[in-house]
C-alpha cells in the first residue's frame, strides 16, 4: 500500500525532525529550566509522531486481524504520556529543591513561610 507508506514516512520523518528540534533546543536554551522545555518536545510530538508513523505501518496487519502490534504501540504512547511528565517534574523539582538558579537570578519560593525560615 503505497499511500499508507507515504503517510507513514511523512509521520516518521516529521517525528524525527521534532526530535532534532528538541535536541537543538537543549543546546540553544540558556539555563537548566528552559532546557527542559526543549526536551519535552522530543518526548511528546517527536515520540508521538514516530509512534503514529509506526502505527500506520501496522495497519495492513491490523486488517488481517493482527491487532497486537498496534495495541502495543498505543500502550507505549500511553506509558509515555504518564512517565514523561513524571520524570520531567522530578528533574526540575530536584533542581528547584537544590536551589539551581535560572537566568534571572534566584528561583522564587512558593510560600512565604519558607523564606522566613531560611
Amino acid at each position: 500500500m503505497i499511500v499508507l507508506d507515504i503517510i507513514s514516512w511523512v509521520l516518521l520523518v516529521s517525528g524525527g525532525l521534532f526530535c532534532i528540534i528538541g535536541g537543538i533546543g537543549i543546546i540553544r536554551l540558556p539555563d537548566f529550566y528552559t532546557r527542559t522545555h526543549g526536551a519535552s518536545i522530543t518526548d511528546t510530538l517527536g515520540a508521538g509522531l514516530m509512534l503514529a508513523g509506526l502505527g500506520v505501518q501496522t495497519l495492513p496487519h491490523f486488517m488481517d486481524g493482527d491487532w497486537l502490534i498496534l495495541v502495543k504501540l498505543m500502550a507505549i504512547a500511553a506509558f509515555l504520556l504518564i512517565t514523561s511528565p513524571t520524570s520531567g517534574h522530578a528533574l526540575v523539582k530536584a533542581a528547584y529543591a537544590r536551589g539551581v538558579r535560572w537566568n534571572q537570578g534566584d528561583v522564587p519560593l512558593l510560600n512565604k513561610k519558607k523564606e522566613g525560615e531560611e
Partner: protein
Amino acid sequence: MPRALVVFAVLLSTWLLWSGVYEPLTIGLGVASCAFVAWFTTRLEPGPQPKTDMGFWFRLLLYVPWLLKEIVIANLQVARVICSPSMPISPQMLRVPCGPKTPLGQTLYANSITLTPGTITLDLRDDTVLVHALSKGSSQGEMDRRCRHVEGQS
C-alpha cells in the same frame, strides 16, 4: 502477601498475552521477572487509593483529546521559538492558583502543565502551583477549568 500474588497474576497474564511466543525460555523469563516485580512491590507502601467513579473515567476520556490538541499547538509554538535565530524567549516563574482540590485532580492538572511544552510544574503547595514558563501568554485558565470538571467540581 495476597496483593503480591494479584500483582504476579496480572503481570504474568499481561506477559503471556503480549509476548505471543510460547517457548520454555520466554515463559521462564516472564515468570522470573513477574515474580521479581511482585516481590519488589511488597517492599513499597501501597499509597493512598483515590476514590473514582465511572463518571471520572468518562470525563478523563473526553479530556485527553483536548489535552493532545493543546500539546500539539504548544509543541509548534516552542519549536518555532527554538528554531528562530533570535530565539525570543522570556522565561518566568509563575505562581498559579490550583483550581482542582483533590489529589487526583491536582496530579492531573500539574502533569498536564508539565506535559505541555513551554510550561513545567516545579512545586505544588497550599493550592498554588509554581510553574516555569518559556514565554508569556501560556494561559492555564482553560486547563484549570477542564481539570476541575474532570475532577467532578461544578
